[in-house]
């Protein structure tokens, strides 16, 4: 399913933060985990994750650094910061209230 650009854009940061909250990962790994957790519903253009990652890094919500992977190659790996965790808690709460409200309005309109 293709989602509208605005809808995807408004949730990308929260999705990335929630994936990184379970452990640090590089860009491809983050996309893979999101696809896996969403049962393939999010069919992103994979590259769009990188501007989002760098924006989050600029806001100090995540930290990216080049580390040596098990294969011996250097990979840029991202980890969530304390500030990022707090932002995630607040975003999750906001999203939960918002989605419940939208859902109840939609349910009422179909009832």
């Amino acid at each position: 399913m293709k989602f509208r650009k605005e809808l995807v854009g408004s949730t990308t940061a929260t999705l990335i933060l929630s994936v990184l909250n379970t452990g640090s990962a590089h860009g491809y790994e983050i996309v893979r985990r999101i696809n896996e957790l969403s049962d393939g519903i999010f069919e992103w253009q994979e590259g769009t994750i990188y501007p989002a990652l760098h924006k989050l890094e600029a806001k100090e919500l995540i930290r990216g650094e080049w580390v040596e992977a098990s294969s011996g190659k250097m990979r840029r790996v991202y980890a969530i910061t304390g500030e990022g965790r707090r932002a995630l808690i607040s975003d999750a709460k906001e999203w939960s209230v918002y989605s419940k409200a939208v859902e109840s309005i939609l349910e009422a309109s179909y009832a």
Partner: protein
Amino acid sequence: MRDIEELIKEYCAQHLPPEPAWIGVLNRRFPKISSWMDSAKSVQREIEDHLRDSYEAALSKGQSAEDAWRLEQERFGDVAVISREIQKARAQSCKCMMVRFLAVVALFVLPLGEIARIRIPAFFSPSLLFFLAACMGVGFLITRRRDWDSLRKYAFYGAWLGLIWAMVYTIIHVKDPSKLGAGAAIMLLSTFYGLFLAAPKSHGLVSIAMMLLCHVGVLIPLARFGLLSFYPDKIDAGLLGMTAALSLVSVLVSLAIFDIRKLPRRLAGVAAFSMVFAYIQILGNLTRSNASLLAFIFATSLPPLTAVLITMQFQKLQRLLLREAN
């Protein structure tokens, strides 16, 4: 099908903007230093890694090499657009960091400028303005994107160069008080001009204002009681106590009204700042009374450090309450 490494490299080279010649020279001569300085290279490597991982995953699912590569290009999106977006995000972050640094430096040199009695007409220094304009011009010519934004970015570099130049000048002439004023003036002016030219376009003006307020909050009480003077003769216990109390209150008040979540980090910055200031005082007054200098260190560094500790405890309590509430 050709080797995937070759294909990826060729694909990125076709779609990503070419590196400027001077970065190429840096890469060849100092590969270690340039790898972290050169954000374009870093972005390219990140994209290449992603393409490689994705290609290998597709192959492992049984797709043919051609299909895997074609699908991967489609899935990834427009590499050139994505790279531009990444560069933009990174530039904003660097700019914000530099504005913060310059704001701190500006506040650090302001009291020195005051002591050196810089007069208002001295703010309009044609030679310094020319120097900054030259830095901006050179920056403009060597960057990929020749626009007003990148021109402003180089005002920062000009300010940094001016600052370093003035610091070296001041250190060289540290024994000649008649030259200190000029050094402080150049430090102050180059920072001031750099901030003035670059700040309106940079992000985080609110954070600059916050930082200004918190540092002024510490500096004003210190200056009020003459502790920023090069000669610590005026120091006495009563004034030190009052300064300590005032700086503690001003730090807490000026920061608490903004963003409570960032308190420890900002307070740690203030603490480090006042400690550095105290150490400079020590270096400048090595032959003077050791007791008064020790007292000065305590007066300038202890209040902010205490504030850090108090705030961290307060934060722990806040987190605990939040967890309970959730």
